């Protein structure tokens, strides 16, 4: 599946990019994260949540959507 992955804040500092497109076979978020951890070693020690198509999801959530985002702690207001 072709996925757009978005990175924000201190996560984007680790990946050195704000967005990328990946062709990947990960079935759920956990599998996708394993792939990203191997690509970006520094992600492992970072605190973040994952959104799929703009909704927060858990590691066991199946990948269905085209847009995944890695969101560091919120700091609004």
């Amino acid at each position: 599946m072709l996925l757009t992955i978005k990175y924000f804040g201190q996560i984007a500092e680790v990946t050195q990019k704000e967005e990328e497109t990946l062709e990947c076979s990960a079935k759920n978020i956990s599998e996708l994260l394993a792939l990203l951890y191997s690509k970006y070693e520094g992600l492992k020690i970072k605190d973040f949540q994952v959104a799929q198509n703009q909704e927060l999801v858990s590691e066991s959530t199946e990948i269905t959507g085209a847009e995944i985002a890695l969101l560091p702690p919120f700091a609004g207001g």
Partner: protein
Amino acid sequence: MKDKKPKNVFRDGAISSDFIGNSIYKHQTKTSIGAHNIFLGQVRADDIDGKTVAAIEYTAYEDMANQKFHDIRESAFEKFDLTCMHIYHSLGTVKAGEICLFVFVSSPRRKVVFEALEYIVEAIKADVPVFGKEIFEDDTHQWKQNN
């Protein structure tokens, strides 16, 4: 799916006191309102390990953030008897002393606005994907995190 499209809550840079004053002015034609309550978030010049915060640079996952602001708005109107509600949040650089969040609720009665405003501000802090880079006077930085 919601039928109403989320509005854009974000403003480029700080929110000026003129903008806030003007927003208050516009509500003086709404004569069913008896009470307004306004929350303003202002950037603090915090001292952290001997360094002083000079500004916060805000970024956001904008589409998701605007959808979350929209959801908070809908849920506040459902819970509370509000006449009006406005939310504005800064993106980009906001210097210490400047305003980065403006939440404005109005109702016929005062009890309602107190409850509603606190509900909305807490929801914004917890649920909206906005990120803040605290920039120190020596140009180093750290990442802000809501508690």
